[in-house]
């Protein structure tokens, strides 16, 4: 079980660049290891069945997360789709292929922009709220109180949030995808006068179920990253209001970097999977 006590294992002995680099590497590794243990205890409780109350708390969290995030996700997605149309349409028009703009909008939105943009917005919106809430609970000894009353804090606090976030991120990504495509359609068809039928025809031709699934698989992993990092930073938060504020900033920055990193790794992995499944087609990832 991960202890709530602030880890005292970090090294602090500045002496020259090499030593400082080594120190940074060790501290980063310790922090990553600590976060890994934290994540494993979360998995442990999920697979050991966290109990009925954790599950009903999960639904409460899903409702909370969904209602809070739909507006920001839709606004963000819509404008990105619109901007994509604004920027790419002139290029397509120049070579007389304006009706093909639908495919590029759909591919970029469904595969890259939708999942990543949604994840980054959720890291700010949900991650920030989670870190602040759990951090405040830590600072005011509520997490200690849970432990004293024999309720595992990971089971009661972290599991519902991670589960809810993992379920909601793909759903919100779908929303963002849909509104993004709609935004692109508005600009291309309604404003710039691209014909409606070819827009949708090429849009549909360029995507298949695999493409949509790629976005959802990514969203699933982004959900894990966002919630685990946010909960971890809340649990390890420093003292006072300042500690909570700093934990929120760190949660966002760490979450953001890990989203981009995992996106890269997933793109490589899924690309290989695609080549294995459809060997004679050009890679679409």
């Amino acid at each position: 079980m991960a202890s709530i006590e602030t880890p005292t294992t970090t090294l602090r002995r500045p002496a020259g660049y090499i030593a400082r680099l080594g120190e940074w590497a060790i501290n980063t590794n310790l922090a990553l290891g600590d976060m890994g243990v934290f994540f494993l205890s979360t998995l442990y409780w999920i697979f050991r069945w966290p109990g009925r109350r954790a599950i009903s708390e999960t639904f409460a969290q899903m409702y909370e997360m969904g209602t809070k995030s739909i507006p920001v996700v839709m606004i963000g997605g819509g404008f990105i789709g619109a901007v994509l149309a604004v920027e790419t349409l002139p290029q397509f028009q120049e070579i007389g292929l304006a009706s093909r703009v639908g495919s590029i909008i759909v591919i970029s939105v469904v595969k890259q922009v939708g999942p990543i943009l949604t994840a980054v917005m959720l890291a700010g919106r949900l991650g920030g709220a989670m870190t602040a809430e759990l951090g405040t609970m830590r600072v005011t000894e509520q997490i200690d109180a849970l432990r004293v009353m024999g309720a595992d804090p990971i089971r009661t606090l972290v599991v519902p949030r991670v589960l809810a976030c993992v379920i909601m991120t793909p759903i919100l990504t779908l929303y963002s995808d849909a509104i993004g495509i709609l935004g692109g359609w508005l600009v291309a068809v309604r404003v710039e006068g691209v014909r409606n039928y070819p827009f949708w025809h090429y849009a549909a031709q360029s995507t298949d179920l695999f493409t949509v699934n790629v976005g959802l698989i990514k969203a699933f992993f982004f959900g894990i990253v966002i919630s685990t990092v946010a909960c971890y930073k809340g649990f390890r938060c420093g003292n006072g209001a300042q500690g909570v504020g700093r934990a929120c900033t760190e949660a966002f920055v760490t979450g953001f970097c890990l989203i981009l990193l995992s996106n890269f790794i997933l793109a490589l992995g899924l690309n290989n999977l695609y080549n294995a499944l459809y060997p004679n087609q050009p890679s679409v990832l």
Partner: protein
Amino acid sequence: MPDQSMQNSPPTPSPLIRFENVHKRFGSLVVLNGVSVAFAEGKTTVVLGPSGTGKSVLLKHIVGLLSPDSGSVYYRDMRIDHLKDRGMEPIRRKIGFLFQLSALFDSMTVGENVAFPMREHSGLSKSEIRDRVAERLAMVGMENTENKMPGELSGGQRKRVALARAIALNPELVLYDEPTTGLDPIRSDVINELILKLHEELKVSAIVVTHDMTSAFKVGDRLVMLMGGGIIADGTADELRAHSDPRVQRFIAGRADEEDLRALHRI
């Protein structure tokens, strides 16, 4: 009911909680520097000491929220300082902990807070829990507040709700971290009476951390004073009043020492 059997058991001489040469530091700050102290079963022991000497840290060692850098902590004859959360669970179930800052769950109502330990651990039905929550809240003078949120309460009211939560499961040991701080004198006396009542009727053992000397002398069978990382005084109220150490005398009388006063006059 477990209380019934406890009532009839004869008092045992072996201590309930025992610290043996416990050292604890945070970074370079040494808080406990070889503390050895025992807390007797069925007795109320008051822990005194200036702010910041580690009284709360001492209590947290008993429930395993902190573990010593060296030395050991025993619950009856069982060594508990190296136990993990899962191993500590049966012991924590027998201990009620009143946190210094109350630590009420602020996403739950007052009623849910008090019901929380019962929902986690007792096989009580919903209506039994509701009755017991009402009874515990009445004991601390907070009846009919079940549906309030902790954020709507004053500091003293939160403390009383936290006390109701700490005694929800009929614990055999209650750790009170400053139970009367922030309460008016009359409320404080009600809490003192509550501590005495739990002690007399249910034979609850208690460790009370306090700065309130009236409360300390009223509820304490025995008083220990923690200062500078160690126990500097240990005895009954009368023994403490007659203690030869000037630091103990100053603390009991609430007198600033010369050095503090000199610092003030320099301003």
